[in-house]
């Protein structure tokens, strides 16, 4: 394999991948930590006319550190009748399915861990991996509440895979490729009726796809209108009920990392990803630095929308949730695909 040039160093492929994976992990954890602090601690508190944590660090900034420390020193117990092996493995799978998503999300012209030809297809496949982790958790912890939560999660996540996938098909038709870099490029260089001032972010032409995607993301993250699996007022903590200590911390990280991951994917697909419109004439050199900042900003914005909806709306009941998915989201996304296809051919 020809050594690739990175930061002016001669690196073999495996060294380059390790560096990219490490950089990706650091970026992901920093972003997740920032999002948790910004939204879960501060923005939600302002919405509820209170201040949120103020004690740990200036303005409560080290609160997440305190939480992580608290969870780490907590005892990691499993119930006596729990199926030990499956019980311990479950959080790992949920976390794995999240970290794997970041392998494909581009953050700059070359800043992507592995630029797969079928990028978006890989993302959708990996995102459905977390269902397995949740089912294992619910089933193995031998707790009726966990069981109820896991079965609800299974029903819900599978029901919302379809709208998620179908919403993306519209974008793929518009961009003409499955590769995320191409999708980003298509949006950066496209123009709307001849004016390419802001490129052609697919949110404008795919507004239906975007809303369905965001609703499906809300359901994938089991956030409020769809938080049946972790219904605090019914199942107390759903499938996480028997977890404590570091395993609960893994679930916590997984939950917010998935939120950031899906927000990043949504901004790549609909808001133009890391690229600024080519018309602004920023060369590749600049984009190496500006790219990650742009995608982070867009992702943080979309996570804000997810949290805003989460802390305002009551939750659907199980059957209403399924009706919404099967009877409304899927037909509408199919219609959207047909419309995009027809318009693609006409224009």
């Amino acid at each position, binding site marked *: 394999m020809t050594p690739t040039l990175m930061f002016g160093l001669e690196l073999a492929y495996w060294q380059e991948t390790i560096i990219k994976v490490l950089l990706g992990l650091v970026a992901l954890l920093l972003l997740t930590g920032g999002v948790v602090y910004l939204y879960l601690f501060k923005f939600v508190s302002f919405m509820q*006319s209170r201040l949120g944590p103020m004690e740990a660090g200036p303005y409560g900034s080290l609160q997440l550190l305190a939480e992580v420390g608290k969870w780490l020193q907590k005892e990691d117990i499993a119930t006596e009748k729990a199926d030990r092996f499956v019980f311990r493995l479950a959080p790992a799978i949920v976390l794995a399915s999240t970290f794997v998503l970041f392998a494909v999300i581009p953050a700059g012209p070359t800043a992507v861990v592995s630029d797969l030809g079928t990028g978006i297809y890989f993302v959708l496949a990996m995102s459905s991996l977390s269902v397995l982790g949740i089912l294992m958790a619910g089933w193995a912890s031998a707790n009726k509440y966990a069981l*109820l939560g896991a079965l609800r999660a299974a029903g819900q996540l599978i029901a919302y895979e379809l709208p998620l996938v179908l919403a993306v098909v519209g974008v793929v038709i518009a961009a003409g490729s499955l590769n995320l870099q191409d999708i980003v490029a298509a949006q950066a260089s496209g123009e709307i009726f001849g004016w390419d001032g802001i490129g052609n972010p697919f949110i404008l032409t795919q507004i239906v796809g975007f809303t369905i995607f965001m609703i499906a993301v809300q359901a994938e993250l089991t956030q409020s209108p769809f938080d049946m699996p972790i219904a*605090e007022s*019914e199942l107390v903590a759903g499938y996480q009920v028997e977890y404590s200590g570091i395993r609960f911390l893994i679930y916590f990280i997984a939950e917010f990392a998935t939120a950031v991951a899906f927000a990043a994917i949504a901004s790549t697909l609909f808001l133009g990803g890391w690229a600024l419109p080519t018309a602004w004439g920023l060369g590749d050199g600049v984009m190496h630095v500006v790219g990650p900042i742009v995608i982070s900003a867009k992702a943080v914005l979309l996570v804000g929308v997810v949290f805003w909806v989460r802390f305002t709306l009551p*939750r659907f009941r199980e059957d209403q949730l399924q009706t919404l998915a099967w009877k409304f989201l899927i037909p509408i996304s199919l219609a959207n695909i047909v419309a995009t296809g027809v318009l693609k051919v006409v224009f």
Partner: protein
Amino acid sequence: MTAVTDRQKLQYIAAKAADSRVNVELETEGMTLNIGPQHPATHGTLRIVARLDGEQVVSAEPIAGYMHRGKEKLCEVRTYPQINTLINRIDWLGSFANEVPFILAAEQLMGIEAPPRAQWIRTMFFEMSRISNLILFLGDMGVQLGAVTPAFYAFRDREFVLNQIERVTGGRFHPNFDRIGGLKDDLPKGWIVDTKAVMERVRDFCDEIEELFMNAEIFSARTRGIGVIPADVAMQYGLSGANARASGIDWDLRRDAPSGLVHPELDWKVWTHPDGDSFARFWVRLQEVREASKMVDQICDGLPSGPIMAKVPRIIKVPAGEAWVSTENPLGEMGYYIVSKGDLTPFRLKIRSASFNNVSITPWLLRGVYVPDIITILASLYFILGDIDR
């Protein structure tokens, strides 16, 4: 196959048994789920044993008694002022409203009438404890359905009402302010002006909650048509207060059987709703908070001057006899049946609390509903554990 030692065999059998036990439990025709006694949806320690078939409830039965303090036995060895402190711990959210029927029953036995100013202030605090009680319900209904934010708005605006009560009585939850023959003290200076401002804030809160919930599709999808109680079943089980009015029963003790308060002199409206489902109960209580805030305003304007306490002997010995007085408490009809033999303590005190009857309908009501609906119905019935267990 290597020689399988006994220990391995035992382990293998044990593992299989563990699996089968788990499977056996799942494949049985139903699962018994214990909701409570420690559970966020029960306002206190109520345990609901629900036999489930999948997500649907085959039969559900609430088990009360985790907070039974034996109030009726305690009251038999306490003098009347001491009982006053006990009974405002029954429905601890609207606690001044607990004291009023007991004091009115004792006054009826003693033939004493509180001076007009005391009656007006008593009615004002009666309505203010209704406001502080039902504001928490409006916020809490959201939490039970999953929207976390309304509860914070409820607690934020409820603090102002509690501060006003504390400025006069000294206690936020347990005012202990009502006396046989009148009240313990009078209002401090400048209190009425602040109360009218607080009532303004209460009405803003009601509009905010209405906007948050009333036309939101998810809320009506989760509450309309859930837990429908027809009027005659409500009467049979003795449902009272907003639960009865939500099933179309036009009955309010403040208007139909005024006992010692000044509600007839105020102009206010009794709200009813024909559906009898969870949405109706929420809606009726929302209107009741608005009516109560208007009433407090009218009382603030028309408060007569005069003494606060009638002539009452220092040592209170209630003459022999029996008396029953019930008033329209925030949770429903609360009444006291005092049997007195003429000495310091009552001979028998029957406390009729609203939530006991309101919750006794749940075995009939919770048949065939989904698990999330159990929580919605319980939240809409709005009981307080102290009220059930006494």
